[in-house]
């Protein structure tokens, strides 16, 4: 029984590490959009930034959900 408990703790830790790495990726996406909108002026800056920050906020939400729920 103890072994099973430890396995799920390990899986939870692994999930949190993966989600933390994903947070970095989500942050890089916001930098990417910043680079894109700085390079090209296509009149789409606000929606593109919204998409990137929405994705980052979603990633933060999932990370904290995993931290609290698992």
């Amino acid at each position: 029984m103890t072994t099973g408990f430890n396995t799920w703790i390990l899986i939870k830790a692994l999930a949190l590490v993966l989600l933390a790495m994903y947070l970095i990726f989500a942050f890089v996406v916001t930098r990417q959009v910043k680079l894109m909108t700085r390079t090209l002026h296509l009149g789409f800056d606000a929606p593109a930034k919204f998409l990137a920050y929405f994705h980052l906020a979603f990633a933060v939400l999932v990370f904290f959900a995993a931290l609290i729920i698992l």
Partner: protein
Amino acid sequence: MPDVFVSPNSPEQKSSHSRFSSFNLYPKNIGFETKDDNEKIILMLRQHPIINIKWIAVTLLLLTGPTILNALGVFLLLPTGFPLVITLAWYLVTSAYAIEGFLNWYFNVFFITTDGIVDVDFFNLIDKRISEADLDKIQDVTYTTKGVLGTMLNYGDVQVQTAAEITEFKFESVPNPEKVAKILDDLTDKH
């Protein structure tokens, strides 16, 4: 045969520009980092919208993932909380895939300006490449329309050979390749 390209100073020039269009003639209120003040954009191109069908189809398939896992009873095997987190993480990755698919299409553009041609590419999330060639460096323009879809929807590749540092520019899967090649031909002839 009538000229496709009309001098930018001509009153006849007509602007066609919408936010999601792939073929924008004389677009207004747009620009790029290395554009000179007196340089005018004649044509802005991006890949034909049909190119987006791949990431849209994959996104729609991915959206069904959690429902399928649930129907197969996979979630029943997991401890409380895991199904919810897996579902959220799944949708998170799906949203990233869709956002990347859209941004890659939207921001990878080609410009034909009064000075030359410009190809803007973004890749590997944080890398960008802006390739430019002056009009007087353009040596040869060819275009190809491939496949049933390309012929039906009138899109294809335009290849531009130049004497610039980058010897070949390829505008991939752009709409109206014949018209693009004609515009480039007219511009280089006038130069």
